[in-house]
């Protein structure tokens, strides 16, 4: 996190500094989110595609992995859409019992 607060030579004015911090925070979170997705894909697609680990990946295992990756991402998109729409629906129906 040192990049967040480290001096970068010139002294930018406070607003620029603030924006820079915000951007760094958003970037860190985006990276963490992507890592989480990659970990989940690996976990689940390994389980689906590599039933018997041998000395190297076979081409059919590689095909399975790449298909599995796009399917997992499609599932992630579907879940995101359903979840977000459900949350906004619940909020509309019962304001105050937000998630």
């Amino acid at each position, binding site marked *: 996190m040192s990049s967040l607060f480290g001096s970068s030579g010139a002294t930018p004015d*406070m607003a620029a500094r*603030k924006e820079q911090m915000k951007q760094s925070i958003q970037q860190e979170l985006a990276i963490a989110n992507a890592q989480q997705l990659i970990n989940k894909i690996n976990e689940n*697609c390994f389980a689906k595609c590599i039933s018997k680990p041998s000395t190297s990946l076979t081409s059919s295992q590689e095909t399975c992995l790449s298909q599995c990756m796009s399917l997992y991402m499609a*599932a992630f998109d579907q879940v995101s859409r359903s979840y977000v729409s459900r949350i906004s629906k619940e909020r509309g129906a019962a304001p105050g019992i937000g998630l």
Partner: protein
Amino acid sequence: MSAAGIPQLDEASKKELEVFLEQEQAKAKLQASIHELTNTCWNTCITGSISSKFSKTEAQCLENCVDRFLDSSLFIVKQIEAQKQQL
């Protein structure tokens, strides 16, 4: 997380950053729930072997999965509420 340790920023800026951080943390929490739910729904719905696209039943299952998961969650809470009142 407090922004007290950040030097060279006035109070208003610190406050603004704290609010910003809270919003970002809420977003991260939402994203974490989506990761968990995707994992759960994947394991529940994708039972066959992997091909280039989902089967019809798998796609249908994924579409319903989140809503039924949240329905279950609400149902369980209601059930517990009801049991509490019987005591």
